[in-house]
């Protein structure tokens, strides 16, 4: 193997090792420890000065108690399930909003497309945190939305949206919309229009041509978009804690509570390990989908 090839392969692997595997090993190690009121707040800690005997003693003190604990307390699986539910529903809602937008963009005159694309990406230039904060101002009891609806006479009493799950859905759909629009747009834009003409020549109406030709051909983009929204939404912390109420149960929030309020680093780490394990399944599916698409293109 020549040196150049080694370097080319080595760089991403070193990156992965340093910034994923090593931190992950540390998290796993903490998840096997016991909480303690000490600095750092868990025991045992790794002391290399103890030599081989010290290392053996260290490993003998690790156990899976924290993982057993997660199965005993209904809080955790309820939170995982509730996160799955919120992530699934918001992915579907995002798809519902994004598809027409992507379709419109792909069918827009060519000279507009760059501008439209720009408008989709533009919100990213503002901090994510500030954009979520501003939704608090819009959705609150004294917020803009209620003010406008009251003024229009549509409602008599201000709606309670902030601090409910509805606000969380709005926040997730808003935040992740571009991740859904862009992959769908890129598949729709590549779509050969003559296929639709052919379908119409062969007796399809416009609607049935859309369902029989456009939609099936956009599936790779839809699948990619769904994963890009679903995966981060599952572990979301900022949106549920700013917009959600005490009834919003998401695993990201539970993780924060374990770490900061309960100061239980071992349990927090165990929750994080399981969250990752749950996420690996959709991530592998996503990889497969990308792979298939690549092969299809060739």
């Amino acid at each position: 193997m020549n040196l150049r090839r080694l370097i080319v392969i080595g760089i991403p692997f070193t990156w992965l090792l340093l910034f994923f595997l090593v931190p992950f090993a540390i998290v796993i190690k903490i998840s096997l420890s016991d909480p303690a009121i000490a600095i750092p707040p868990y025991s045992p800690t790794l002391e290399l000065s103890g030599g081989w005997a010290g290392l053996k003693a260290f490993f003998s003190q690790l156990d899976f108690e924290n993982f057993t604990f997660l199965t005993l307390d209904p809080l955790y699986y309820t939170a995982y399930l509730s996160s799955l539910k919120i992530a699934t529903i918001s992915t579907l809602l995002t798809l519902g909003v994004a598809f027409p937008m992507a379709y419109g963009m792909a069918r827009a005159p060519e000279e507009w497309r760059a501008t439209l694309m720009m408008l989709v990406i533009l919100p990213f230039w503002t901090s994510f945190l500030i954009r979520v904060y501003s939704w608090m101002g819009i959705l609150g009891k004294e917020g803009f939305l209620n003010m406008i609806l009251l003024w229009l006479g549509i409602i008599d009493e201000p709606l309670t949206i902030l601090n409910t799950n509805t606000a969380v859905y709005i926040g997730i759909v808003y935040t992740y919309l571009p991740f859904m629009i862009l992959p769908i747009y890129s598949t729709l834009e590549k779509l050969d229009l003559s296929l639709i003409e052919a379908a119409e020549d062969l007796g399809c109406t416009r609607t049935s041509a859309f369902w029989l030709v456009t939609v099936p051909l956009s599936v790779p983009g839809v699948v990619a978009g769904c994963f890009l929204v679903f995966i981060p939404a599952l572990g979301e912390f900022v949106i549920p804690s700013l917009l959600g109420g005490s009834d919003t149960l998401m695993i990201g929030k539970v993780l924060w509570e374990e770490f900061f309020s309960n100061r239980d680093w071992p349990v927090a780490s165990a929750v994080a390990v399981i969250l990752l394990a749950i996420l690996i399944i959709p991530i592998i599916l996503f990889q497969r989908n990308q792979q298939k698409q690549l092969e299809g293109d060739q």
Partner: protein
Amino acid sequence: MTKTWLPMTAAIALVAGSAMAEEVRVYNWSDYIDEALLEKFEAETGYDLIYDVFDSNEVLETKMLAGGSGYDVVVPTGTFLQRQIVAGAFQPLDMSKLPNAGNLWDVIKDRTAQYDPGNAYSINYMWGTTGIGVNTGKVAELLGDDAPINSLDLVFNPANMEKLAECGVHFLDAPTEMVPAALAYAGLDPDAKDADSLAKAEEVLMAVRPYIQKFHSSEYINALANGEICVAFGWSGDILQARDRAAEAENGVEVAYNAPTEGALMWFDQMAIPADAPNPEGAHAFLNFIMDAQNMADASNYVYYANGNKASQELLIEDVIGDTAIYPDEATLENLYTVTPFGPAEQRLLTRLWTRVKSGV
């Protein structure tokens, strides 16, 4: 000032300090000082003061136990201080750098010595009680003129809470405050830590949970003052600040604080210097500045909490020194209890209980 749960930073304008000045970083509770004092400290000592605030002992402890917080002075409550001292989080005070320590009040020093033996690691900043703040007008409207506003019955009896839910009730997001109160209501020892007693406290809290709008440890000051909520279970001085803000705003809201007759928790917030403080010299300067009689009196006159400084007492306004809700008389003092810290195993029981209460699972 608007409050959020996010660690909020109150950056102090660097008017007095030059670019060369050394920094002193202080991490204190929100709404807990007259900010004029911060400028005064910079002007007197030439240090740059970085003043950050928190509203939860738990968050402070997370930072202390993670180490390397970067703060020179922090203000944990007695019970938390005690176990953080054991964990090695603080350095002993150098009394030779604290000439103002002579101003401290023996009565309080004796009490804080149970958390910090010999008061070797900390000085008392302020102390107070945990009790019930009400919007008197709203509560009378919902529960009648004889509403039990000085009793735990108001906040732990579901029949009362069901009615109060309509106008909004906030509880502190602090298990070490709410669980002793629930134990006292159940007629148990507020310092109990065994599983059976905690289960009874959980029952009390769970029964009223549906009627609580929010668990939060600082939002209630403003919410109570502008009439958004009508009951808060919170800290004495915070509720008295809400009373003042409402009076200043002349918005028709009248707030009252009562330590519950079933017994109220008495707590002590202690200033201490982290073991790894970057600037212990500056930290001592800050502690000494705070222990000055005039400075401490200014702080108490502003935030309506009692302090542990004997010399400051003659400089306190009558509203503070004369109020038994702040400086309790003998009879009220009888009614106050203190608690001890939770050990590691008990701690987990407590945090689980609290997570269940908050999430309703």
